[in-house]
């Protein structure tokens, strides 16, 4: 089973997690491996959103994987945003000052809006 679920909302590649507890090493390693192809997934529009709405617990080693992804996005000029982080995890993010390093939004709507105008959006207008 994949650890990540990848969908597209307008021109944003939205990544959500299949595990609610990201604690064991094997899961974190798998997520890290699946992270490594995300900038390719988002190569067209360079908009990538990590949606944490499914994740209730997360080990600190997972933060390392997010940082690696953040570096890769910077290198490939992909706009990375995070959203829907539960209070437990947000407290850790705040303590580690990740809130100063990453673009974090309360929910997917806010994050998607922050990506700015959608090139394909006229398709959906009725």
């Amino acid at each position: 089973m994949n650890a990540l679920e990848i969908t597209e909302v307008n021109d944003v590649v939205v990544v959500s997690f299949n595990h609610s507890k990201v604690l064991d090493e094997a899961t974190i390693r798998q997520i890290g491996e699946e992270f490594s192809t995300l900038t390719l997934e988002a190569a067209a529009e360079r908009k990538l959103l990590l949606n944490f709405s499914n994740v209730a617990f997360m080990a600190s080693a997972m933060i390392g994987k997010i940082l690696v992804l953040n570096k890769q996005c910077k290198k490939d000029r992909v706009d990375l945003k995070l959203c829907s982080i539960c209070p437990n995890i947000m407290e850790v993010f705040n303590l580690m000052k990740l809130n100063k390093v990453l673009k974090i939004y309360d929910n997917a709507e806010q994050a998607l809006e922050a990506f700015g105008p959608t090139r394909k959006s006229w398709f959906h207008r009725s």
Partner: protein
Amino acid sequence: MSQITQDSESERPQGMSEFTITVLLVDDQKIIGEAVRRMLDDQTDIAFHFCQDPTQALEMARQIKPTVILQDLVMPEVDGLTLVKFFRANASTRDTPMIVLSSKEEPVVKAEAFALGANDYLVKLPDKIELVARIRYHSRGYINLLQRNEAYTAIEQSRQRLAEQMEAAAKYVSTLLPQPTSEPVTIDWRYIPCTDLGGDTFGYHWIDDDNFALYLIDVSGHGLDSALLSVTIMNVLRSRSLPQTDFRDPGQVLLALNNGFPMEEYGGKFFTIWYGVFDLSSSTLSWCGGGHPPALLFENGPSATAPIELDSDGPMIGGMPWDEFETQQHAISSGDRLFIYSDGVHEIHLPGGIDWPFEQFVDYLAGHSDPQKSPLDGLLQHVRQLNGSDLLDDDFSIIEVRF
């Protein structure tokens, strides 16, 4: 049939013992022994042993370790059912499959034999095809059991070895930590490593005649690699081996650490740190944190008040390039108390899926401000109670400084 044997052979994990199908026939009649021997003669992967004297059967079984025992129920010197009982009582044959042989179908005897632990019943003399099939069927099950037991033992041993190594590493880290002290300030601490080592270390030492450094490090992840990196960083701070760095300036120290320990060069591991320097001549505490929970300063006063959170803006160390880690300062008075700790002290998963709120941790320390009594043991006990177990998920490290 031989296909099955080959398959199970090829599936055998490396390092596991090889088991041969070994038959022990216990029967007082030599002619039966000879008949069975002939039936099995062309089965090259089956070893056959015949015991004509039932009083020697247990000893012989102990020696040859059969994977199946064929036993006659009617013999002159020993009651066949009693012998079945003996085989079952004996440690070396307790689980060995037993096929009892009788001259005719006797439902009552059959039931009795099964009740005593026999696995199968055959009427003498069975057809060759059936006998070989039953020998293989029962032996295969038993060999699987032996291999499973062997694998369990191997896993248990390796788990034990790993646990011993972790314990040795935890002891080693403990020996590197400085002793509690009363000069120039009173320092006490508690360090309770979690079973798989959470990557915490801490220390304090004089930098020069006036300046005393205090720090606590928490490397991401768990395990020996996290602990080793943590010890390395502790040694770097202790030996002051960072290029062009004034160790009296916490911001400079964190900047140099961030430049020197990028996570991609250290197995994807980053760390958080709180580093402070107490200047005795000016009674000033300088500090800088990198992604670390704020140290808590309780100022000496008539009543318990909320602490000053000695926080910083800098992120964790090694996670990304960062231009500046800002050094901050605060004046210290006699009687002030400072707590430096890792997240394992307050990030406790409560039953019901929520975490212990950070404010409640701060409140706990604020509520236990008796200058004569350290709150450290009480805090540890409280956290263990909240956790529902004495075994915590992360290293529990906290330093208490009394100025």
